[in-house]
Every structure is written in C-alpha cells, then in structure tokens.
C-alpha cells in the first residue's frame, strides 16, 4: 500500500534521546538535507551540561529541535509536530513540547522496565500502554531490535551496532518527509573515511529505516514540505559560533592584521576556539591560556604589539576578566570581548540560554569604563556582528563587547554565501616612525574621532609607556591631578558616545513608523519577536518591531522612534536589563517582558503579550 502524500507548510521535529544516542548528529543531518532541498530552517539544540549523564535518566536527555518549511522561518517553533524519543526519559522530558494530536515515534526498547524505572515513571507504568498518550498519534518502532537484525552479519560489536540506531530513525524520518538519502550517505562516507565496515553499517541502517516506512503498513501518510521562497543564490548552513569565528577571521584579513585569540574553554563559547584553531593558515594565533584573566591580558598584549586581540568567554569568565577589560579601556587599545551568554548567576545553567549579561557588559568594571556593545540576532548574524565589533574596536581604539548567547551560538540556519569584496573595509593606521629632531610623540593626542594613535613597539621614535594609572591628557604620563582626571573621564566617555556618528541609523524591522505598540528587542530574541509581530500585523494590529544591534552607543534616531508609539514593550531573557537602559536614556515609558527559564521565548508567549498590551491601549 502506497502512503498518501500530504503537503505541509512547515514542520517542527524534535529528536530526543540519551546524550550518547547521537541526537545532535541526527538533527544536524536532517537540517542539512532540508536546507539542501531549499527549505528555510531554524534549529535549537538543547543538551545537558553533563557530557554523559547517567543513561536513561531525564537529566541525561539531549534534544535537537528543528523547524523546516516552505515559508520563511525565524524560530525553531514553539511546539513540535513530531517527537522522536529513543527512551522513556526523552518522552518524559519533552512531551509538554508536543502539539496536541502530534506524532510520537518511540523506540520500543527504550520503554522496558529498566528504562521506565530510570525515567521515574510511577510504578514503572509504561506510557505507551497506559493510555496517557491517547491524545497523540503514537508509533512504537523497535529501533534497537531492527538495527541489530540489520547488522547481524556485519561482524561489528554490539556496542557499535547500538550506536547505529540513530541512523535508523533518520532514515525513517527521511521516508516520512519524502527526502532522499544521498546527502547523509555522502556525510557518512566522509565522516568515517577509511572505516569501511562502519560506513557500510551506518548506510545499511539508514536504508533499513527508510524501507521500514514502506513495509510497515501502519504509516499511511507521508508529508511533503516544498522549497521556501528564498532569494536565489548559493547557500551554506552555518552555526552561530562558527559564524563568529569566521567573522573574526574576515575582520583580521580585511584589516591586514594577525588575529590573536586568547581564551579559556567555557560552555557555550568553546566552539569559537575549536573553529579558529583549525584555521591557522589564516595566521590565526589561538592561545589557550591558564585562566580567563591570562587570556584577556594576552589579547590586550597582542593588541599593544599591533595584532587584533580578541578574547571570549561566557558570563562567569567575563566576570573574571573585568579588571583587565577596564585596563583595555584606559589603555585605549583595540580589543574584542565576546560573551556567549548562558544562564546565571554563578555557574548557573551552562548549556542553557539567557541574555542576563547585558548590564555586566555595560557596567561590569570598576570606575567609569564605557565600552561599545554590539549584539548578534541570529546564528548567521554572528558573522556580521563579530565583524562589526572588530571594526569598531580597530577604528575607534577601544575594547568592544560582542554579545551572543547559547541559543544562537549553537543554533544553525541557511546563510547566503557572501563575497569578501562585499565586506566594508576596516581602516587601520599605525603611527609612523619619528626621528629625534621631530617633535615629541604624544601617545594620547587625539584625532577628530577622539581616537589616539596606535603606536606599536618596534617603531622608531615612538617609545612610550602606558599603564593603568590615570594619565595626563596627550602625554600619557601618570597624573594625579584632579581636573585632569575629570577631563580624561569625560574624554573617554565622549569617545564612545561619538561612535554613534559612525554606525547606521536605527531602522524599523517590521510594521509602520508609528503606531500603538513598539516591540523593542536585542540579541537572539529577534526571530521570535519578528514572528509574533508578523502575526499581529496580519491581524491588522498597529504593532512595529525595532531590533537593536548597537546597544552602546544607541543609534542617534532611536529616541525619536520611541516617541512615535503609545506603548513600548522590551522582551528579554533576563529580568529587564535593556529596558532599564532605555528608560534611563530616554525617559521613555518602556515596559519589560521577562523570561528567565534558560529557554528562548515561544511565539505564543509574545503574541499573548502583544494582545494583552493592545487591549489596554485600545480600551
């Protein structure tokens, strides 16, 4: 019996299993294949902090959610249409994410007595049998058993055979969504190059999964998701941290500087280091320091010597770097500080996402130490935001914060490949050599941007000293003079404020120039706010969306934009940090909308907030 083919606009699948079950890889492969066929996609990997939490427990569940469609997508979806669970713990952890009436594909072997007990189901009651899933379409598949049978004669150990079972699931999902296996077969052949038996085993299981759809007559419908209306061009898939790394390399190339990346491993920032350390043929110098402080100090040292100094961490590491970043501010040297934010405070939720380090970026240093702040809004935007952070650091001789977060750092999306010629130039001028008869070099004499010269050691006649002590205007000599300290404090602030003249004016992302309600967002909430505003606009509501990339200094026209709306809502994955800045800066009646659960907003949460707010405006 051939299954019917049903057309879907977009589908959300959540793959969930033990952290050793290969769910990230399975989701990643499905994503690549969907992108390859022209679907728009948005993904959300969600995994535990422990590398291999006890098998079968809820704590050890790793998930990969992906939303693919024939329409443009900006979020990985609030709820999933299909939930794939490799064991009972994965079901328990994720059932609340499944739409009513949604499909569950359950690996039968993961629901035996032992697994039920580990997942702490009451009295070992099996949800597949006790009627608790009556609102869903449940398909039990004995993935473990069929995988074993497929590979009976492979000669592989049972451990290796067991590790192939994610390929069965993937093959089956490919059948369900009418996808070809070519892309993944190519991937398997590359990944396991030189291991013929492993390649054959994985491909055999992948095919077995695909065939299962045809032969097991329980599946009556297959789905088709047509290509999305995406601008023509060449595309690649990109993960946020990878985009950040490439953005840094591009900035170094364009500014003709050596990239120095001083860092200490920390979740979720380490993948930037992993990516950069592979690209040493771009003269990328990665330095895994003994701690966070040494890492940032090395980056500042690199900048002093004429390199592009960059350091990265997440909140806890940024806290440690605070003193050195302040030194960078008084040194007035280029430095990019990347914070891939995660749940806090303290160690908090290392693998979960949050935007709660914004005020840390603003104020997390002793003394008056202003810094520009740039935030990325999506995985691919990490490229542009990182590039822009480097540009500002180099052209304005200042440390710059680049904020990303766990959600976009690990998430992926299709990215239209750009050409290096399309990138803005980055202008770097080192101070030139001097002879003895020339007038004395003044390391803190400024240009029209209030920027001091970058005088690198090894340049004749420019020997000078810089330090953390307050310095005399122009000469840079140590000064304890009261009026001079006021002057230097004012100049350092004015220099950062002046960057507003060199960044684009704020634009409205969607909606009209004026209206009842403005949704004002920053960072990784971009996609979900855009989606919610799109829904509201379709319903004829007078809602607009402004999304900030530059948070310090703010775009010069932002104050004017804010005045044109009756209400301003600032949704943030923190307890209201940008909203404080906006209220302080503009005395605008902005209201915060907070979520601090380590998870991104759901579209429906924002839609509800928009509707609530409008009901008070229109009342």
């Amino acid at each position, binding site marked *: 019996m051939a299954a019917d083919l049903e057309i879907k606009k977009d589908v959300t699948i959540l793959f969930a299993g033990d952290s050793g079950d290969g769910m990230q890889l399975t989701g990643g492969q499905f994503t690549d294949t969907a992108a390859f066929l022209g679907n728009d996609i948005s993904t959300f990997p969600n995994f535990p902090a422990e590398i291999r939490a006890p098998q079968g427990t809820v704590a050890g569940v790793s998930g990969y959610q992906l939303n693919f469609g024939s329409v443009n997508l900006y979020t990985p979806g609030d709820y999933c249409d299909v939930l794939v669970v490799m064991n009972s713990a994965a079901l328990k952890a994720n059932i609340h994410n499944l739409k009513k009436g949604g499909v569950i594909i359950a690996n039968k072997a993961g629901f035996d007595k032992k697994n039920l007990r580990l997942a702490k189901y009451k009295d070992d009651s099996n949800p597949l049998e006790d009627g608790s899933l009556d609102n869903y379409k449940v398909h039990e598949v004995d993935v473990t058993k069929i995988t074993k049978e497929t590979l009976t004669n492979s000669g592989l150990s049972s451990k290796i055979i067991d590790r192939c079972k994610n390929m069965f699931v993937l093959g089956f999902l490919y059948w369900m969504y009418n996808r070809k296996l070519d892309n993944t077969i190519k991937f398997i052949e590359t990944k396991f190059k030189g291991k013929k038996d492993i390649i054959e085993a994985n491909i055999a299981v992948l095919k077995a999964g695909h065939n299962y759809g045809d032969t097991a007559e329980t599946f009556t419908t297959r789905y088709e998701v047509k290509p999305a209306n995406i601008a023509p*061009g060449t*595309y690649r898939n990109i993960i946020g941290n990878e985009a950040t790394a490439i953005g840094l390399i591009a900035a170094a190339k364009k500014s003709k500087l050596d990239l120095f990346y*001083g860092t200490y491993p920390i979740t979720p920032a380490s993948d930037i280091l992993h990516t950069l350390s592979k690209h040493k043929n*771009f003269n990328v110098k990665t330095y895994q320091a003994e701690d966070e402080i040494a890492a940032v100090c090395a980056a*500042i040292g690199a900048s*002093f*010597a004429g390199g592009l100094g960059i350091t990265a961490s997440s909140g806890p590491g940024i806290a440690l770097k605070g003193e050195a970043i302040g030194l960078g501010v008084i040194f007035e040297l280029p430095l990019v500080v990347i914070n891939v934010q995660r749940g806090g405070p303290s160690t908090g939720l290392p693998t979960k996402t949050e935007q709660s380090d914004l005020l840390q970026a603003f104020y997390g240093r002793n003394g008056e130490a202003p810094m520009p702040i740039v935030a990325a809004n999506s995985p691919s935007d990490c490229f542009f935001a990182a590039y822009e952070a480097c540009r500002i650091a180099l052209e304005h001789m200042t440390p710059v914060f680049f904020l990303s977060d766990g959600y976009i750092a690990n998430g992926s999306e299709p990215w239209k490949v750009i050409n290096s010629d399309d990138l803005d130039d980055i202008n770097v001028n080192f101070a030139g050599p001097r002879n003895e008869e020339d007038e004395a070099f003044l390391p803190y004499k400024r240009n029209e941007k209030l920027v001091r010269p970058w005088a690198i*050691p090894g340049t004749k006649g420019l020997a000078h*000293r810089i*330090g953390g002590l307050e310095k005399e205007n122009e000469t840079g000599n140590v000064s304890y003079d009261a009026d001079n300290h006021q002057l230097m404090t004012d100049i350092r602030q004015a220099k950062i404020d002046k960057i507003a003249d060199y960044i684009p004016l704020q634009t409205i992302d969607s909606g009209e120039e004026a209206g009842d309600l403005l949704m004002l967002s920053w960072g990784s909430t971009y996609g979900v706010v855009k989606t919610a505003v799109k829904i509201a606009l379709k319903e004829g509501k007078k809602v607009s969306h402004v999304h900030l990339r530059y948070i310090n200094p703010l775009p010069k026209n932002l104050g004017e934009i804010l005045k044109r709306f009756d209400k301003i809502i600032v949704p943030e994955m923190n307890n209201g940090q940008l909203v404080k800045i906006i209220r302080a800066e503009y005395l605008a009646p902005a209201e915060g909308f907070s979520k601090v659960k380590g998870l991104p907003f759901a579209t429906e949460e924002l839609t509800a907030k928009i509707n609530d707010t409008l009901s008070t405006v229109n009342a």
Partner: protein
Amino acid sequence: MAVEVQNKKLTSKDYATDQDVKWCPGCGDYSILKQVQTVFAELGLERDETVFVSGIGCSSRFPYYMNTYGVHSIHGRAPGFAAGIKAINPDLNLWLISGDGDSLSIGGNHFIHLLRRNIHLNLLLFNNQIYGLTKGQYSPTSEKGKITKSTPFGSVDHPFNPAALALGADSTFFARSIDRDPKHMREVLLRAEQHKGTALVEIYQNCNIFNDGAFFTFSDKSTKSDNVLVVKQGEPLIFGKENEKGIVLDGFTPRIVNINETSADDLWIHDETDRVKASILSRFFDDNANDENALPRPFGIFYSETRSTYEQEMLAQLDKHIESKGEGNLDSLLKGNNTWDIKGK
C-alpha cells in the same frame, strides 16, 4: 659622496625617562634600575625594540623609568601580556618586572605557566619579603612568624622558596642576585639577556621602610662571607671569610667541609646544566642562618637549559600549516565545504 652615519653610542642615562623616580629614598629598586640601564648601554640594546611589562607593586613602576616601550599592567598578570606581545612580535626584547606579591601571590598561577611555556623574556623578581605599596603586610616569601601590620602576632604561613618553585615548574633559567652587590647583578643580568627562553632572576631587594635589613645577612660585611655562596660555572662551591669552607655532596645531601681537610676533587663543582644539582642548590634555603652548620645562601646562576620557546613552537606550527594548506583564502572560508544553489522561481 656617501654620508657617513655614525650611530651614537647610548649611555645608561639615555635609557632613563624624563619622569621623576618615585621610590622611597634608599630603596633597593634604585640599584636594580641602575644596573638594568647599565646592561642596556653595555649591550647597546635598542630602545624602540624593547618592551618592559610589569604588574602592580613598588617594583612594577619600573617601566615608567625606562625609555623604551612600557606596559604597567594589572596585579600579577604581566605574563599574560607577555604571551600576547610575543605571539604578535617575537622579535621584541621583552622584560617583565615583578615582585614577590605580584609573581608569587596574586600572579602565582601565571608565574608557573610562564615558566613551563618558556616564552623568551627576562623576568626580574624583586623579592623584598614584604608588601610595600600597600604599606607593610607580610608576603608569600616572608618568614614564618613575621610580625607585620596584618600579622601582629606573627604570620602562620609557610613561605615560598622561589628557586624550588621555579625549578618545579620547569624553569629553563634561574638565577639569584642582590641589590647591594651591583657587580654581581650586572653579571647575572648579562647572562639572563643571553638566555633564549624565560630567564628568571630573583633579586633580593631591601625595603628600607617596611622590612629593613631582611637580607643584611647576605650583604653586611660581618656576616656576608659565611652566609653567601657565589656559584660559578665549573668552579667548586667555596665560601667563608678565608674561602676556607667548601660543599661536598654526600649522596644527595650537601655538607660543609673545611677545604684544607678535603681533597679538591671531592668538592661540589657547579654545573648549571645539572637539574638535580640545581634542585639541591635550591634547598640551600631551609636552614636558619644563625645555626652553626647552616648552609649558605647561593647566588648566581643555579640552572640554565636550552628548550624551544613557546613563540617558536607557535609560529612553526603556523608556518607548517600554511605550507601544507596554503595561505588561507577568505572566500573559500566564507563558502564552506557544503553549499547548495537556490534558483529563482
């Protein structure tokens, strides 16, 4: 007609800045500054090719007084800056100036990692066994029982032995000198400058305000000769008023002998390439100087070995990678390995 350019030979004064030196009158730091400037003039080192980096503390004001490039950084972190500077420009002549608090307390972690990495630089550790800039608290090298503002009943901490710590961290060069013996300091600094890698020189430095006389045993005429052992490559370990005392090794245990009663062949001959002997030498530290059989305190170069530097290794790896893969192409990096084309509808 060719113009003859004559390079003016710089004097030690040419390495001084126009800034007033603000250490307390009588501070041992003056002597160290003078010797560094002397060595620079003697070797004709380029001001524009030199960087002094320091942390925080009295000693760390040093860069302000050297007419070279200078970085007065934050407490204990000078080694971090050094790593970045050398990675970008390995040709710079780099000097780190630090104190016992800066290197052994707040910067202890960076100190040991710098030594194991062996970045090519000279690290001068001004050891005055006290916190000076914060006005007189005990330091990690203060002797146990030290009475200071923060330890009115005496400190209960066991102190660090900088030589043993450095050798334990696989330092490739360790030497000790003292502010009151400028001639010795000059010799040691010249050797440190020649060393490829991290050359660590511990300098006993008198803080005449908060810890006056901490090292007088090793500088005062009446006690010096019985308590100071100057080690020289290839020469026997001899000390004493009449050079009458020598050291022999009994297994791994050093013993003081009267050289007139011992065969010259039995005396310990100093070999700065011998890690085991250097390690034993580093333990000439534990005895109370007042004990009759106390081992003298060694000065000079304890240990020196040649090991590739961090920046050499880093750059070699870069070159190798470029050689095998070619100079990175930004456009192919932007494109990645797996692309697909979307055609217009």
